[in-house]
């Protein structure tokens, strides 16, 4: 059998970094092929070359035996290669059919298109109403729009970039069902992920990249997840450790918190209530867009609420602004690093001042002590192993993972009473992620209360004492994390409604 796609010696260099170095592998028709690697291993660059977004410096590709060198994505689509991106490109104010029509060369009449969308969605078990507004859809449903958009082109190869990062476990099941069906019909799937268990369940073959080079290939079903992780990282990983302890007095309490959304497609918070105790890590799971950003804004003080809704060590703080809360010991690290947690064009020193001014005493009567501020930035860089030439470098010049270490470290080093982090290890490589989790656990160990909002369920199970889930702005009752199964977590995430049809 000839391979569907043959890749030989693909090389792509950017200024200062070789993204792909002499990568070769092949995909058979109907094969589900995993592309594994840490962030920055070169997975994205590789698929962008296959999809015609980036031109390789060297190397060649053959598709179905014929030379293949797409100049642009349109050429790739014409040749039968489709791609579902990690970040969706959909217009919230348009409906599903309109969004799909926008991506087509010659869109059929709306009614015909709607009929085809229904047909494809039924064939592949992806329930979707063509006339619903995309703004009203969940992340999982939005992904279905993107998948159906691809399937309408009858692709021979479907590329999926980290498709499960935004899905609940039940939605993942539906997706896998669809992918298996496609593969049985002869469509090959190139599946990018760093979730090893998923890959073991779904994929027929795997190619592993590290620092731009292919470091191995394996049949995922036949090897252990730990083996793949070692290939991926290049060393064995330590699991964060902690001692058992009894939680202490309540440090932060939220009750009766309801907030209307700031924008038409925002999520309202509905009667959210929880408490966190000293020495405890509270994990808040949930699929993106279910109120995580809104909850963080309420806790950080960016969205002031009634004073009584949030109390810190018994003091009502709901109406206070961000700096007043910092002074009292309530610190936050938002998800969006560039533009929210840090100003992209400012240096790390200036970004250290952003949240560190009050607690580190970085100003005297309003005049900034830049020397002291630089010292604080250097301590963060040093303690959290931020890879940068120095604190004078602009935040945007750092890689996502390094900036994340800086942002989290900046808050942890300020010795918070309560720390709230949103997606603390998003885009951070495995060893750095382990270091961040350990630092969060150490913080709790020393008597702080830590709230971790995350979409990475493995992470939450690993570090939380108690776990709860946000669903459409409602927070479930927190439950002890130990002994909680994925099935139960999935039901908590889905809010136990709307999941029955999906589970079929």
């Amino acid at each position, binding site marked *: 059998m000839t391979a569907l796609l043959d890749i030989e010696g693909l090389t792509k260099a950017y200024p200062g970094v070789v993204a792909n170095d002499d990568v070769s592998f092949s995909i058979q028709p109907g094969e589900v092929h995993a592309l594994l690697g840490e962030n920055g291993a070169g997975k994205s660059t590789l698929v962008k070359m296959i999809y015609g977004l980036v031109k390789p410096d060297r190397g060649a590709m053959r598709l179905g035996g014929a030379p293949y*060198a797409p100049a642009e994505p349109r050429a790739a689509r014409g040749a039968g290669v489709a791609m579902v991106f990690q970040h969706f490109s959909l217009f919230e104010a348009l409906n599903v059919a309109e969004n799909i029509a926008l991506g087509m060369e010659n869109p059929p009449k709306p009614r015909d298109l709607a009929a085809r969308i229904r047909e494809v969605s039924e064939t592949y078990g992806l329930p979707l109403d063509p006339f619903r507004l995309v703004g009203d859809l969940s992340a999982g449903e939005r992904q279905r729009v993107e998948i159906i958009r691809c399937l309408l082109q009858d692709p021979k190869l479907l590329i999926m970039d980290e498709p499960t990062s935004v899905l609940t476990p039940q939605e993942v099941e539906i997706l896998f069902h669809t992918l298996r069906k496609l593969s049985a019909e002869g469509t090959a799937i190139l599946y990018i992920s760093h979730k090893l268990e998923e890959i073991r369940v779904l994929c027929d073959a795997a190619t592993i990249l590290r620092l731009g080079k292919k470091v191995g290939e394996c049949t995922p079903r036949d090897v252990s997840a730990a083996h793949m992780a070692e290939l991926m990282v290049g060393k064995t990983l330590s699991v964060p450790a902690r001692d058992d302890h009894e939680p202490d007095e309540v440090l932060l309490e939220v009750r009766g918190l309801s907030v209307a959304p700031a924008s038409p497609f925002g999520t309202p918070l509905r009667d959210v209530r929880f408490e966190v105790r000293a020495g405890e890590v509270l994990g808040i799971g949930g699929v993106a867009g279910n109120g995580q950003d809104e909850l963080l804004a309420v806790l950080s003080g960016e969205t002031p609420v009634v004073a009584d809704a949030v109390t810190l060590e018994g003091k009502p703080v709901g109406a206070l602004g961000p700096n*007043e809360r910092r002074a009292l010991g309530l610190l936050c690290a938002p998800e969006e690093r560039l533009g929210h947690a840090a100003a992209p064009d400012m240096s790390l020193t200036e970004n250290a001042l*952003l949240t560190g001014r009050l607690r580190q005493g970085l100003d005297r009567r309003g005049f900034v002590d830049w020397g002291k501020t630089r010292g604080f930035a250097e301590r963060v860089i040093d303690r959290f192993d931020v890879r940068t030439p120095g604190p004078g470098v602009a935040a945007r010049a750092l890689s996502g993972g390094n900036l994340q270490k800086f942002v989290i470290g900046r808050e942890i080093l300020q010795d918070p009473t309560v720390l709230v982090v949103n997606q603390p290890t998003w885009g951070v490589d495995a060893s750095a992620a382990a270091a961040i989790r350990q630092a969060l656990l150490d913080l709790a160990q020393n008597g702080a209360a830590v709230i971790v909002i995350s979409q990475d369920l493995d992470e939450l199970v690993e570090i939380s004492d108690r776990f709860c889930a946000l669903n459409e702005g409602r927070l479930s009752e927190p439950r002890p994390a130990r002994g909680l199964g994925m099935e139960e977590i999935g039901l908590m995430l889905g809010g136990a409604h709307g999941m029955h049809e999906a589970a079929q």
Partner: protein
Amino acid sequence: MIALEKRAQPSRAWVVGGPVLAVVLTMLAGGLMFAALGTDPVEAIRIIFWDPLFSERFAAYSRPQLLVKAGPLILIAIGLSMGFKAGIWNIGAEGQYILGAICGAAFGLAFYPSESPLIFPGMVLAGIAGGVLWAMIPALLKVYARTNEILVSLLLVYVAEAMLASAATGWLRNPEGSGFPGSRNLARHAGTANLELIAGTGMHWGVLAAFIAVIAAYVVMTRHVLGYQIRLAGQAPRAARFGGVNPARLVILCLGVSGALAGAAGLFEVSGPAARISIDFNVGYGFTAIIVAFLGRLNPIGILLAGLLMALTFIGGELAQLMLGVPAPAIQAFQGMLLFFLLALDLMANYRIRLKREGMA
């Protein structure tokens, strides 16, 4: 293929060297234009850039004019630059300048003919108050009614002009002026005059205020938390809110400061160089200051230099018209070239040009 690539860090060499190169390029391109018009290009360039400062014939008159013209431009531009850095766009400095002049002059004339030494300081305060008042209209409307400050501040310029006309022809008209529009001469009355501080230099209180504003703005923007918050709000509004910056307070503060400085500039002008409230009192300093602010890259030192350069091209341009009969549009085109080259080369501070070779394996 030529492509632009963003630099990780702004290039220091281009930040400093760009403007110098821009002036040289303007001289070359402008020289070509003057040559095409049949004027000796070398002489034209010399008259514009050199003679206003160093010629024996003209310098005695034009050298003081440099500070007289640059003073208000710098003073207004410094105020505007703080707002612009924060992403708050006060386009109506011209109106705040007029209101400052009207309020300051009205205060001084209310005590006429007293020559008390307290009157001039009072006029300065009244001028500042007038400018702040006028700037608070767009500020409060933006904060409480979410209107766009660009439109409101700009349209208020025309209201201010109408008020200026009514003051000049009506309630501030010189009662001894045999019915001609325009107020009493403030510069020739001891109590209200904005005197030249050092004879023959053009250095009056307003120029001194401009220099003080440059230094104060430099200190605030680089050393003070307020300057940090202004830069933060302009670059990353979400990060600013996370950092505890109150957007409403910042809008009121930035518009207030720019209104205050524009109002002060108006007062210094009406009590000094312009000497009286007249219908055509405002000559566009408030608008030109926007260009000066950007030309100086919103940096206080840059604004100081940009204000002086702008004033020089105005004075030199007038001189060239007078001496060589160069048409006025040619002078405007020349000033346009200067702006064009400055802004075009400004790109190089943040981007580099790369020549990419086509082709792949």
